[in-house]
Structures are given as structure tokens and as C-alpha cells.
């Protein structure tokens, strides 16, 4: 079918386009039977790392092009520079984000997502999925930020915001869509948003309800896909925050999608995984581009008559060494917040000195330096003073002094502390029976065994063997005494896992909970100030209190 109407030859027209003969038209091209290229720029799990930061890239990061030795890493202005450069170097293009742009640095704690939404809008983002951390300052806050500052679509097909009793539910329904078709020069791309469900059970808002009815993604995706196809979508993709395992299963099981753009597990995959759908035999690329503003992904597709013919992928590492510039528009937005933060928080204020890198993960996969610091500081804090403490390892997000070399010292700043402990969690105390302590630590062993036998909790007053083979906790000592299953123990933990976050349901059901309101970050800050030289004689050392066995 030929394209329709209005085609003007502009031979020699100077000043409007280029110096060489060309042709300018306003026609929608006739795509039937032709190869059509689409470029998708992908970001995910930025977690408020809008400003560059220091860290030590892992072996996997190195393999993906993020080399050691850069002055700093990440930063939204650098991402925007790459995103705009790549979109200028593409024909039809979309920028999609797989969620969790909120939470992870002080800029979120202070401005509750305003900087993230303004910054992403300035990158030219087309759409983002609503993920779990978008609710971290409440559902109403998400609405306010998007309604006030958002310039992109917010998608989620598996959240149903239809509770008339809860005002924010109606608000979110107003600013979000289950799916949308993006039309680019005749190509119609259907995008279905998929939030994750596993973390929602632990995110609370006032009365412990977000007013969200969760819909089964295996029902909603075929429905939305059929709707999009009926509206003329050439291809349909899911923009997902469900995590890699669920994305792979979705690609294998649901017939009517062509592509999965995912996030949540903070993994970057280059090249993308390709899943063969078990019903159609179609090969479905599954793309994840990592977290913390470390990477920007570019996926190029060739599509013919609705069939994804071939794909190509490039992952761009974001660091001072790999990105030559910063986007001026995003830089100017961020400067407003950065100046304010510097004045109010004195982020450069030194609160202690580290003589070695303070790690969030243990060298054996068991207890860690920062984990032991945190748990000990929690249970010893005046007014808390419990027998034991347990906190989730993922509540500690980065090492302190990540680039510290042997023989050097590192000034620990307020900024370091916020980057390492971004969550505004508080200490919750409760009484557990000995059997509940056993259940709690068994769960830690089970969850850790699913993650390479790296302990998913950090403890104080407890010593145990984490058997990842049998997925149980053994040889449990409480302050040096074997666990008494019939005994009673007072626990300090964080309010996130106390509400059942990360699957700690045995804590959620406890009726003796008391939220002290004491900020864990403030407790750790006080501990660092008190000890000052770390690790020194402090508790910030690995002592084998969690012994992994596999």
C-alpha cells in the first residue's frame, strides 16, 4: 500500500535541512511487508542515584564495561546525555523505565521524588512502570509528584486503583494507565505496565493499605495485549518490575507479547536473554539494564508485519570515564536540590574515619562489617536495649569507603551514611518465643540459599550456622547460650521487615510490636560518632556470628 499524499521534492533547499539534495515528506510510510526499525532506550531501578557517587564496581560490573578507577559513577545528568545522544542517533525511538526511580539517596528522603520525576521528565522519558519503591512516601505522594512534575506516562496493568474509600486510590487512577500505544512514523508499539507484587505486601500507608487490588498478571496481560492489538498495535511489550524470574516465565507462557523490558532485581544483562514461548515458538528477548544509574540500555529491533525479525543490544556504562558529558537541562534541575542539600545537611561533614573499607556483605557470605555495626547499634541504643537484633542485609545499600586502598584512611561523611542507609526505617521491638526465633533464622537460611548463600539478614546477640544445603538454621546461640525453644526473647528489628517486608511474615504476625520511632540511620550515625575510628575496637568487624554452610 503506498503512503498517502503530500510529498515535496526540496532539491537544493538550503537552511531548512541539509546542504545536500534530499526530500521531505509528511507521509505515513506504508509499512506492510517492509522492515521497520525501532530503538528502545531502557533504564531501571535508578533508586534516586541522581547525583554521581563513588563505589567499587564488581567483577560483573567490570565485565559489562564499568571499569574500576573512575572518579565517580552514575548520575542522571550523564544518563540523560547518553539517552539524548542515542535517541538523536536513531529513527523511531522510545525511552522506557522499569520503575523504582524512588528511594536510595538523601535527595529522595528530603524531596520525596520531586527531583526524580523532574529529572526523568527532562530526559524525555516516555513511560515508566509503577514499582514498589514508588510508594515509599505513600501513594498520595506518588500522585502529587507525578501530577505536579511528571511529563511521562505511568503504567501498571496489574494494579487496580478502584477503591472509593481511599482518596489516593482515585488519584492514582487519574494519573496512570494500564497500557498505551506509542505511534512513531506509522509503527504502533503497545506497552503494558506490570508492577511487582511480592514487595507490595510490606509497603504500608497509614492504615496498612494502598487501596490497590492486585490483578493476576497472567489474566491481565493477555487482556491488555488483545486490546492493544485490536487498536492496531504492531508489537506488544511488557514494561515490567516483576523481577527476572517472573519476566522469563511471562515470556515463556504468554503468547501475545513480543518483548519484555524488566527490572527489580538490579541485574544488567548483556546480551539480553531470549526465551522461546512454549505455545507459539516465538523467541522473546528479555532485557534488564541494572540499577543505581550504572547503565543505560539500547535495544534495536527490526520488525516486519508485526514480527520481531532480529534484535541488537548495547549497554552503556555510566561513569566519569565512560561518558564525556552531562545534559545541561538535567544538570540545572539537580543543582537546585544539590545546593539546598549541601546547606541544610552538611553532607560533607565528617562523622568518623575508616581505616579499611566497611562492607555491606561478609567475605564468607555470613555476617558483614556494616551489618554487625548496625545490628549492635540497634540493640544497644538507649531505650531499645534488647537481647537480640535482626535487620535485613538489603537495608544496607552500599559499602563505606568503597575505593579505600590499603594504608589510606577514609573520612566518613553524612553523605556516605545516607548512600549506605537510604531508608528512613525505624527500630521496632517485639517479643519472640524461642520457636519463633528458630523460624525467623530458618527463613533467613532459606532466603539466603536462594541468593548464593549470602546472608539476607544481619544479627546481634545471635550466633548460628546458616545451612544453605538443608535451608535451616543450626547451632543457635543467644548471647552465648543455646536457644531455648520455650524461652522468650526481646528483639530489635527494623519496621520494614517487622511489617513483613522481604517475606518476614513471622514478624508481621507478632502482636507485641512496638515501633520506637527511632531512626536506624541516626542510631548508626551516633555509633560511628562515638567510635570515630572504624573498625578499630568497634563492632564493625566480621566475627563469624553467621556461619554459612553449603
Amino acid at each position, binding site marked *: 500500500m*503506498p*503512503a498517502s499524499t503530500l*510529498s*515535496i521534492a*526540496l532539491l537544493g*533547499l538550503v*537552511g*531548512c*535541512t*541539509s*546542504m*545536500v539534495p*534530499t*526530500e*521531505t*515528506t*509528511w*507521509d505515513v*510510510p*506504508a509499512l506492510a*511487508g*517492509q*522492515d*521497520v*526499525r525501532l*530503538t528502545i532506550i531502557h533504564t531501571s531501578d535508578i533508586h534516586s542515584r541522581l547525583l554521581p557517587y563513588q563505589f567499587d564496581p564488581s567483577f*560483573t560490573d567490570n*565485565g*559489562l564495561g564499568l571499569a574500576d578507577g573512575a572518579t565517580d559513577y552514575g548520575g542522571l545528568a550523564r544518563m540523560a546525555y547518553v539517552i539524548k545522544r542515542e535517541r538523536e*542517533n*536513531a*529513527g*523511531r525511538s522510545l525511552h522506557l523505565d522499569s520503575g523504582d526511580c524512588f528511594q536510595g539517596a538523601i535527595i529522595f528522603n528530603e524531596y520525596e521524588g520531586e527531583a526524580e520525576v523532574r529529572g526523568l521528565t527532562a530526559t524525555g522519558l516516555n513511560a515508566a512502570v509503577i514499582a514498589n519503591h514508588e510508594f515509599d512516601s505513600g501513594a498520595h505522594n506518588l500522585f502529587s509528584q507525578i501530577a505536579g512534575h511528571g511529563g511521562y506516562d505511568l503504567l501498571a496493568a496489574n494494579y487496580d486503583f478502584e477503591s472509593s474509600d481511599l482518596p489516593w486510590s482515585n488519584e492514582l487512577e487519574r494519573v496512570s494507565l494500564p497500557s498505551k500505544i506509542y505511534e512513531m*512514523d506509522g509503527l504502533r508499539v503497545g506497552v503494558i505496565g506490570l508492577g511487582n507484587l511480592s514487595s507490595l505486601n510490606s509497603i504500608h500507608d497509614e492504615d496498612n493499605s494502598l487501596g490497590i487490588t492486585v490483578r493476576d498478571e497472567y489474566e491481565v496481560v493477555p487482556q491488555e495485549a488483545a486490546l492493544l492489538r485490536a487498536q492496531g498495535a504492531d508489537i506488544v511489550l511488557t514494561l515490567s518490575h516483576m523481577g*527476572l524470574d517472573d519476566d522469563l516465565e511471562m515470556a515463556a507462557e504468554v503468547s501475545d507479547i513480543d518483548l519484555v523490558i524488566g527490572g527489580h532485581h538490579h*541485574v*544488567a*544483562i*548483556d*546480551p*539480553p*536473554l*531470549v526465551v522461546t514461548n512454549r505455545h507459539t515458538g516465538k*523467541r522473546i528477548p528479555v532485557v534488564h539494564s541494572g540499577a543505581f544509574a550504572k547503565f543505560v540500555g539500547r535495544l*534495536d529491533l*527490526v520488525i*516486519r508485519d508485526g514480527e520481531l*525479525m*532480529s*534484535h*541488537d543490544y548495547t549497554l552503556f556504562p555510566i561513569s566519569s570515564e565512560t561518558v564525556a558529558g552531562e545534559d545541561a537541562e538535567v544538570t540545572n534541575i539537580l543543582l537546585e536540590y544539590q545546593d539546598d542539600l549541601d546547606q541544610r545537611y552538611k553532607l560533607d561533614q565528617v562523622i568518623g574515619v575508616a581505616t579499611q573499607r566497611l562492607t555491606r556483605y561478609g567475605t564468607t557470605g555470613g555476617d558483614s562489617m556494616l551489618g554487625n555495626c548496625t545490628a549492635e547499634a540497634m540493640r544497644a541504643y538507649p531505650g531499645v536495649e534488647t537481647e537480640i537484633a535482626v535487620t535485613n542485609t538489603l537495608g544496607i545499600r552500599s559499602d563505606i569507603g568503597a575505593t579505600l586502598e590499603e594504608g589510606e584512611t577514609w573520612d566518613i561523611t553524612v553523605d556516605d551514611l545516607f548512600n549506605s542507609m537510604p531508608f528512613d526505617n525505624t527500630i521496632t521491638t517485639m517479643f519472640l518465643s524461642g520457636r519463633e526465633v528458630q523460624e525467623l533464622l530458618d527463613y533467613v537460611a532459606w532466603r539466603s*540459599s*536462594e*541468593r*548464593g*548463600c549470602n546472608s539476607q539478614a544481619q544479627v546481634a546477640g545471635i550466633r548460628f550456622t546458616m545451612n*544453605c544445603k538443608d535451608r535451616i538454621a543450626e547451632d543457635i546461640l543467644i548471647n552465648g547460650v543455646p536457644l531455648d525453644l520455650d524461652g522468650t526473647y526481646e528483639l530489635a528489628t527494623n519496621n520494614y521487615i517487622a511489617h513483613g517486608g522481604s517475606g518476614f511474615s513471622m514478624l508481621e504476625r507478632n502482636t507485641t510490636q512496638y515501633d520506637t520511632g527511632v531512626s536506624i540511620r541516626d542510631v548508626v550515625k551516633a555509633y560511628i560518632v562515638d567510635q570515630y575510628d572504624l573498625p578499630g575496637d568497634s563492632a564493625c568487624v566480621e566475627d563469624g556470628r553467621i556461619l554459612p554452610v*553449603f
Partner: protein
Amino acid sequence: MLLLLACTQNTPVERVEPTFIYVTVLEDELGTVDAPLPFSSETTQLSVRVETLDVNGDPWPHNGDLVVKLRPGRLDQAQWVTVTDGVYEGDIAFANGFASTRVWFSDEGDKDAGTGREPSFATGVTDPPLWYALPTLAEINEIDDPESNQLENEFTEVRAIDRDVRVTAVGTNGFWITDMADEVGSYNNLFVYTFSRPRDEVVLGARLSLLPGANQEYLAPRSSPSRPTRSPRTRS
């Protein structure tokens, strides 16, 4: 009036031709999913005809370069071809295609920046695809230069269905496999990195029928005399 419209900011798409690229393969032996061509590291020549088309799908007399690449797989060297009066006919040299492989031709603007010609990003791929057999473990490993693994950073499947690929060890973040159909010492084994503990069905002696993953070279420390191993992995 129309010329003025062409200069305003509110116009829709300002099109640079060609809009489409159509590729015809001038050979018969392309392989099929049931009868694939043998996997090979040797250079292969593929004869093609490439035509540039305008917005209506009619021939467009393009003169300029097109960038060429192979997905998945690698070209023999970085390549482009020059289209004259809308047509290129000639050979493309490549190696290491595997599974369903297509050659891309795309208009990324002229290599010679002096012309100032804007790219249209029109892209065409070979169709039907070339079908190559999947590489065996030994074929993944057996290369002359361990630092230039031809499958580095490629997502592929290991040829397993007609072989005897067994789990020979299990670790906390992956497992080892060996292709028993090959002789001992034929580089017929590698490590599969799974990030976390392999699923329960991955046990010693289990036979694999399907193993997809991204291939990454692991180079042992320089002081070690051992040969580098290669690790298709399912996650990064």
C-alpha cells in the same frame, strides 16, 4: 506556501530517504531449523542484493554507505557497503553465525562525514534467516586465541539435544557440565554461572536437553598455567 511549511518547527516527520531497505539473499543453501548449516568459525561468503526504497516502497535511487552487521554472530571485519543508484549486489563475509542469524543493512549516514548526508536509519535484514547448528561445548571452547572468543558476549544455546551433556559438579552459584559425547580432554566442559544456588533439579549426572545463556570468557590469573575456561551463564 508548501516550502514555508517545510521550514516551520511544527511540521510532523521530516523524512530523509531511503525509508526502507529490502534485502534479498542470492543463495539457496541457507539451512533450516531442522537441517541447519554446520557451526563454523571459518569465514563464509553470502551473496546479497540490497535495494533502497522510498516512503511508498518504491525504488529510491540512493547513493551512499550502509552499515552491515550480523545478529547474532560477527562479521569477518567491520563492514559497510556502498549503494549506487539504490542497489548493492555483492558478498558479505562473516563467521560464527549460530541458530537463526540475519545480516543487517542500515543507513547510518555516510561514513565520509564531508558529505553532510543525514542518516535515515532505514534498516533491512536478510529473510529468511540463515540457520546454523548450535555450537557444542568443544566448539565454544576450541579456538586459537582465548582472548578473542568468537562467542564472547553472545547469547546462544549449547548444542545438547543430540549430545550427552551431563551435570558434573554443583556449586553455590552455578554448576559444571561436560559433553560426554566428546573425548576426555577435548575442552568439552564449562561452568554455568547461575548467580545463586542452582535449582533442585540440577544434580550430579542430570542430562541437559536445553541450555541457553550468554557466553563470557573467564581468563584465569596470568600466573596460572591453566587454560582459560568459558562460562555461558544465564544471568549477569
